[in-house]
């Protein structure tokens, strides 16, 4: 009797257990639905079709390039945000994280109006350098970097903030310029956060749809990434859409697993 009571006390209160189970089901059931409706028998041939192969290759290629671009521009930006004492830095921080909350389609429209052939900046790119980003693979990379870079910036800025300033000071007294200290002291120390930020933005870029289709359009092999292929296939060939979705699911889960196991516990700052 006493044991039973003790056991009861250890049980989750229903007020928590019910919504918790509902929440878990809400998140997990759609994945199960996807698996349940997957055309397993045709999966092999669907995945070998050139459309899928092209879309997957393009997705991986563009997401990786977008992550590289995000790191190249985002790490210096994060450093400035973390280290600047300017009054305008708070405003700048708010502005550069806007793409985090902006609907991606809006981001795509903004990109089109800015970097498009007739855009505010794009018209000069086109006129002076003959560069036109929309409807190109480079355009996909730009659209993905636009939505993905804030993830890296936010993560890395947090890491810079929590990094030991004392070590940068020590480096300075040893004759290191700020750039040298950044390269040889601070960056090596925030590698876990850098990787976490890179993986987050890579995953975001891989799943990017709205900004990409708006800015870069859709053409198989050139700008048709996996999410666009899924979306368009859904209208004509739901089986193929599910097959594509499964591939994205597998890649996402793999990335998430890598992130959880290797970086999140230590990185912390995410």
């Amino acid at each position: 009797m006493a044991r039973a009571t003790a056991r009861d006390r250890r049980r989750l209160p229903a007020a928590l257990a019910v919504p918790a189970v509902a929440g878990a089901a809400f998140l997990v059931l759609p994945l199960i639905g996807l698996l349940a409706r997957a055309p397993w028998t045709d999966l092999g041939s669907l995945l070998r079709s050139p459309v899928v192969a092209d879309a997957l290759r393009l997705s991986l290629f563009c997401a990786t390039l977008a992550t590289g671009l995000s790191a190249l521009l985002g790490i210096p930006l994060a450093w400035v945000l973390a280290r600047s004492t300017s009054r305008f830095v708070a405003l700048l921080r708010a502005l550069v994280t806007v793409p985090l909350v902006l609907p991606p389609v809006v981001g795509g429209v903004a990109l089109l109006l800015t970097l498009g052939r007739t855009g505010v900046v794009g018209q000069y790119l086109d006129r002076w350098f003959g560069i036109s980003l929309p409807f190109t693979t480079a355009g996909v990379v730009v659209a993905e970097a636009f939505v993905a870079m804030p993830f890296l910036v936010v993560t890395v800025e947090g890491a810079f903030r929590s990094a030991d300033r004392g070590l940068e000071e020590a480096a300075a007294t040893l004759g290191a310029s700020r750039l040298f200290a950044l390269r040889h002291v601070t960056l090596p120390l925030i590698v876990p956060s850098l990787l976490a930020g890179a993986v987050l933005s890579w995953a975001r870029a891989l799943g990017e749809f709205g900004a990409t289709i708006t800015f870069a359009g859709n053409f198989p092999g050139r700008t048709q990434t996996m999410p666009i292929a899924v979306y368009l296939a859904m209208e004509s060939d739901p089986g193929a859409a599910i097959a594509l979705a499964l591939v994205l699911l597998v890649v996402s889960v793999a990335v998430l697993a890598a992130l959880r196991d290797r970086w999140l516990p230590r990185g912390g700052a995410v």
Partner: protein
Amino acid sequence: MNRPLSVRRAGLAIVALVLSGMAAACSSSPGTPASGSSSGPGSTPAVTGTVTVFAASSLKETFTSIAKRFEAAHPGTTVVLSFAASSALATQITSGAPADVFASASAKDMATLTSAGAATAPTTFATNSLTVVVPSANPAQIASLADLARAGVKVAQCQPAVPCGVLAAKVLATAGLTVTPATLEPDVKSVLTKVRLGEVDAGLVYVTDAVAAAGSVTAVPMPAGVNATTAYPIAALSHAANPAGARAFVDAVVSAEGLAVLKAAGFGAP
């Protein structure tokens, strides 16, 4: 999948669901067939509630206008319009999206529904054909359909799974032209937008779209003998939450007044 477009659609669907649910709860006799006696808008004031209409993108202007007249003729009714590629709408309806009426830009997508039992007895109410549109400035100096095949000309057309894409492929094949489009847009309005913004040199859109956007794009006449037409069927859906409203709206479209609106927008007679 966190796709903004599908989120928007889901939002619409939820709104439609809630509204139709409310309408069903409010209307005193939801099951009463009002269609038997209705012969046109204005003749049967018994129609109430919300009518949810899924219509092809190319019907945006005309159906918006017809819906306004319909609401005026039937006080207390609300028409909720959802425009997208016909194929996308057909997929949504077969997946259970709550719609009362479906107006398609191709017989094929309507056939998908009739064969699934989701719709019966479709009526063809209009036809449409393609035209080339160019930005007002006409940067690539497009003068004929054949110019679209020139190297360096950026062309936007619909993706092959949607009716305007099917039509575009048919037209180009008939003309014996090989065009490599810069982008295959998910629906005809996206094509028009890319032309309007000047991001592409030319687009293949419906004649009706060229009429609607006459101020911002210029239509280039199609050579005789190559154009193809698509038929627009409309049907009340079997699972309509507001069958009386659905019937009345279909009648309104095929009424003399409705056909006049369509004709004024450039649609061909059925």
